[in-house]
């Protein structure tokens, strides 16, 4: 394998060429259908819907295109006219020559104007359509349910919004030219036949040969193009993975193994592309040979016709011109065939995205959750599973009264985060009801629900941009003071002031230049700026020390007045003071009550609580058993 390496790489040679059995690079899911049929009416119709707004432009460009094609057809005729008049034995016809010159000048001016208009209009229209399709998809993805987004890799969506959209763009640009090519083809056939039918007919008789060859060629070529596309997306996927996971790759020292595996994929990509290139090019000599044949026919047959006085020499010259132009459209149509296939496949994938059903949708008569609502949250016998067959929450009921602080605790994977997701209606329950402010969340508009609930998610996600922009996020009307105040409440102000540009410091990707705890604080502050009636804190302080946490809690006390808070924490000290504590295990509520009550009960909570305090040296293994086993089985 070493011989395959580009020589400038500094990779140590591997002692054995074997590939580790458990190592793969790149996601190994096969890309779905890459090449579609060249024509799919439905997809064309969908694409047309995006072109429709620009149909005036399309008409203009089509007209320009036809004019352009017309001038292309005209030029050889003008040449014929000039030549025939120049060599009339009766002597030159000067006025005819002038006429020809003027005609030619006009033709090329029109040609210029038409080409200019058509290319500009098509170019811009194709760009507009491209951006419109992308926007439509992006907008749609803002509405589709999270269960779709959970299942779909970001990279895959990105390749829809970048790669696939681009092949539609390519298709649009090309399809206009294809129309031009087809028009030219028919134009030439028409002119050739009408100028001299028998000569034209003889010349065109080479066409069927081309058709037959193409029928043989097409399926093979198609397969080769398909393979090339597929290996390409595999290679690109593997690269993307290496970039995103680079920190893990380096810390696990997997560079070498990955490189070897990647080399396999890159090499496969090279091979398929070379094969595809072979198939694409093999048509060239065939088309050229046939062009030669057609010219030979014209010369032999046309020549003898001239000698017999049946046609003028100008006709011969014009035919030669036409033959040369004649195969150009055929050639480019061959190339465009693969563009079209690709576009159809892309179009299919795009429409698939656009057609993802919006499962969670506002009812037509959905109500707006008023800011004055009481802020209560209630679960009524809720059963929910990401996969309905495997419920994550089973018959869960609890109520959070207005202004209360309620904590959710339980072993990992017991369904705490899932329950919070339901409050916001990220997913719909399978049974039971979730009520916010006394209304079933399914009867409310999602928008108004969202503005009344602020969440700190378990995994802090920050956007590229400044610290200020991140804390303010969508509340563009929030003042600087408000942002700073929120940062102060969560104790982030101090560290922000120590950053190079304070609130204007640019954050790296995902906030990478902050520590995880700092990221958590920023996302906490973001939730406070949202100024909502209900605050959901999912492990909001898990990566923060208890001291900072206490400072936050003290500051929060005032802020929480009149608001409802739902808090998830594993560090039980965090939630000791909650009004009520709900203990979840295996998706079921097993205990409820305040700290004292639960401690007195001596159930799971008191066990977890005691574990939190004592050390593992003091606790016999079995003590942890009931919860531990359960936790692992969830």
């Amino acid at each position: 394998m070493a011989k395959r390496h580009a020589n400038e790489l500094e990779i140590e040679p591997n002692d054995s060429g074997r590939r580790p059995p458990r190592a793969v690079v790149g996601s190994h899911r096969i890309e779905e259908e890459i090449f579609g049929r060249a024509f799919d009416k439905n997809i064309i119709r969908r694409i047309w819907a995006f072109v429709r707004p620009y149909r005036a432009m399309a008409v203009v460009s089509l007209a320009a295109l036809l004019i352009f094609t017309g001038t292309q057809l005209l030029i050889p005729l003008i040449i014929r006219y000039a030549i025939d008049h120049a060599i009339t034995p009766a002597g030159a016809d000067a006025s005819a020559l002038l006429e020809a010159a003027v005609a030619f000048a006009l033709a090329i001016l029109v040609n210029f104007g038409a080409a200019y208009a058509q290319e500009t209009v098509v170019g811009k229209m194709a760009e507009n359509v491209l951006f419109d399709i992308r926007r439509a998809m992006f907008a749609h993805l803002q509405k589709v349910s999270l269960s779709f987004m959970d299942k779909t890799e970001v990279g895959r969506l990105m390749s829809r919004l970048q790669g696939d959209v681009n092949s539609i763009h390519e298709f649009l640009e090309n399809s206009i030219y294809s129309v031009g090519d087809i028009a030219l083809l028919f134009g030439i056939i028409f002119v050739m036949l009408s100028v001299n039918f028998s000569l034209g007919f003889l010349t065109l008789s080479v066409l069927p040969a081309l058709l037959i060859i193409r029928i043989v060629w097409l399926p093979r070529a198609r397969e080769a193009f398909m393979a090339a596309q597929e290996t390409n997306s595999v290679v690109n996927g593997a690269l993307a993975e290496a970039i995103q996971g680079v920190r893990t790759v380096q810390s696990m020292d997997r560079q070498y193994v990955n490189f070897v595996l990647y080399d396999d994929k890159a090499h496969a990509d090279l091979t398929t592309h070379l094969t595809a290139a072979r198939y694409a090019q093999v048509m060239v000599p065939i088309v050229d040979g046939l062009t030669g044949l057609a010219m030979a026919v014209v010369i032999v047959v046309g020549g003898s016709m001239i000698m017999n006085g049946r046609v003028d020499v100008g006709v011969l010259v014009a035919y030669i011109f036409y033959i040369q132009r004649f195969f150009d459209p055929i050639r480019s149509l061959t190339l465009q065939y693969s563009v079209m296939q690709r576009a159809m496949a892309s179009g299919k994938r795009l429409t698939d995205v656009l057609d993802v059903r919006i499962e969670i949708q506002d009812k037509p008569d959905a109500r707006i959750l008023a800011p004055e609502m009481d802020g209560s949250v209630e679960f009524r016998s809720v059963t929910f599973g990401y996969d309905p067959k495997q419920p994550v929450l089973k018959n869960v009921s609890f109520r959070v009264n207005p202004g209360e602080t309620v904590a959710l605790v339980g072993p990992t994977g017991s369904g705490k985060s899932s329950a919070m997701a339901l409050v916001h209606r990220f997913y719909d329950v399978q049974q039971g009801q979730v009520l916010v402010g006394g209304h079933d969340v399914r009867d409310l508009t999602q928008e108004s629900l969202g503005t009344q609930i602020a969440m700190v998610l378990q995994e802090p996600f920050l956007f590229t941009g400044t610290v200020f922009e991140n804390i303010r996020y969508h509340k563009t009307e929030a003042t600087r003071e408000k942002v700073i105040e929120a940062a102060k409440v969560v104790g982030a102000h101090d560290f922000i002031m120590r950053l190079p540009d304070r609130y204007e410091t640019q954050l790296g990707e995902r906030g990478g230049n902050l520590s995880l705890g700092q990221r958590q604080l920023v996302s906490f502050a973001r939730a406070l700026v949202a100024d909502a009636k209900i605050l959901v804190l999912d492990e909001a302080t898990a990566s923060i020390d208890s001291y900072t946490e206490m400072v936050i809690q003290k500051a929060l006390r005032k802020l929480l007045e009149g608001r409802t808070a739902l808090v998830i924490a594993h560090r039980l000290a965090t939630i000791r003071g909650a009004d009520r504590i709900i203990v979840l295990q295996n998706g079921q509520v097993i205990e409820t009550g305040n700290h004292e009550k639960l401690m007195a009960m001596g159930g799971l909570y008191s066990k977890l609580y005691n574990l939190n305090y004592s050390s593992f040296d003091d606790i016999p293994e079995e003590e942890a058993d009931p919860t531990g086993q359960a936790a692992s089985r969830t």
Partner: protein
Amino acid sequence: MGSDAVGTTSLKSSAYVKAAGWGRGLSTLLRITRMNLRHPWQVALAIGSTMVAVILQLLIPQLLGRAVDQTQVAIGGSVTVTAAEQALWTPALLLLGASTLRGLFTMAQNYFAEAVGHRVAYELRLACYDKVQRLSFSFHDRVHSGDLITLGILDLDGVRMYFSTALVRFFLLTMLIGIGACMMISTDPVLGLIALSFVPFVAWRSSVTQLKLRAIWLDLQERLSVLGRVMEENFAGIRVVRAFSAQAYEMAKFDIASTNALELAHEQVDVYVPNTSAMTLAFFVAMGLVLWIGCDKLIAGQISVGTLTTFLTFMTILQMPVRQIGLMVNGFARAYTCGSRLFSLLDQDITIGDASGARPLEIGEGTLRFDNVSFAYPGTGNRVILKNITFCARRGETIAIVGPPGSGKSTMAHLIPRFYDVTGGTIMVDGQDIRGVTLASLRKAVAVVQQDAFLFTTTIENNIAYGDPWAKEQPIERASESAQLHNYILGLPAGYKTVVGERGASLSGGQRQRLTIARTMMLRPSIVVFDDSTAAIDAATEQRIRAAIRRFAKDRVTIIIAHRLSSLKHADRILFVDNGEIVERGTHQELLAKRGRYKALYDLQLRPGDDIATTFGGAP
């Protein structure tokens, strides 16, 4: 481009490139050319075929001219019609032959040109992949992953196309025009010069356009990557977007980025189209002049109708290539832009690599020592993150690190496997400065469970075996048992073959953390760091993991970073870090006796039921 960053800063360097003009452009293009020349045979075949194809192609107008003249001979009456008809066969067959041969050579030209491009692309892919994998963390901190992906996909493609769309086409055109010029001018100087009169105009327009397009390309690429970033972050952070009902805001962000890019895309059309149309017009003007003056000469008897046909067919042959000049110009501009961007990645210095004469790390006692270590993240000026950190840990010892967020705990962990290099002081393993040993041996000896868990999109078992891809089933299961994950996995429909990924979206926070713990338990490091890796795990489960970690820790140096004090009170030494300095150190008991910050923390967490119990939410 030297060592300047591909970062968010210098990828945005269009102004710089605009100013740099031709000289810089040439050096990039030369470099790409040199890469092409590393496949001398294929390049030679491509160029050779181009030459033959051009010559054959130029023969065609001559043959046609001859044939046309021959038809006139009979009209002149000097030979019989049948003899003249016979004579037509020769040029006809020659035409057929020339045309077919030309096709064959064009095929070879195109194929080899593409092959060279694909081979170069293959090498560049490997080079990029290798570079990306080995560039240090600080590089990746600075450069957005989306930009790097674009670089490895789109920019690489631009460089690939250079040979076939730019270089070979340039060569072809030069040959076609050059040889054609000689032939035309020797046949009829006046007509020849007229036929070629469009060339200077086209050359001038295309070089001007090339410069403009370059700048636009570069700018457009940047705007598209901004757009890409907006979309990518929206999808990756979709829960945040939904949680805040910020869809409208995100749409607005998208629209701004999108409109910016669209404007430039239109501008590109505005630059490109007038130029290609003007070039075509110039060409047609020359053709018209040839026709006009040619006919004049024909009338005057200075040339034959065959010669005129030769000239005119020559012009038609040029028509396609001239129309493609626009593409060629674009090819050069694109290769230049993409090449510059790609090379600025490939030319990045690998700041963290093996020193010259580095030797594999030799583990004896397995002692880790921080000696007066200080550190600032590269590119952040003098914002010192760690100051004078000194401590030592022997095999079998557990060191615990506590401290407020941002105090530098993770940073300390990242210095040990040299994810970053210290800026002052030294870190030593068994007396060897870690900068003096090979990186591979060091990283084999040090394992870090990262605070921010990244999982690959593959099966659970492949994820667990990531660091040891040769592993059999048993150790994998044992590791996952230690991490308290085994039972959960068995409960999944596909068990260990369940595919996870994308930062493990379908696992709960704690499950993800346990997977990364299991992944590390597969390794046999001498030094292992657990960076806050049980924060999302409940006490009971943690308890059991802790027991496994203790067994695992027996013959290694273990560093535990945690906020839950129960996780670390049995450590041999506890370091309390604040603001990059160790402010307290000692065992749990010692620190409690000190009544300092550790004690305060302990009180907050560990004393049940007193005043601070009421902190949350106000009501007791």
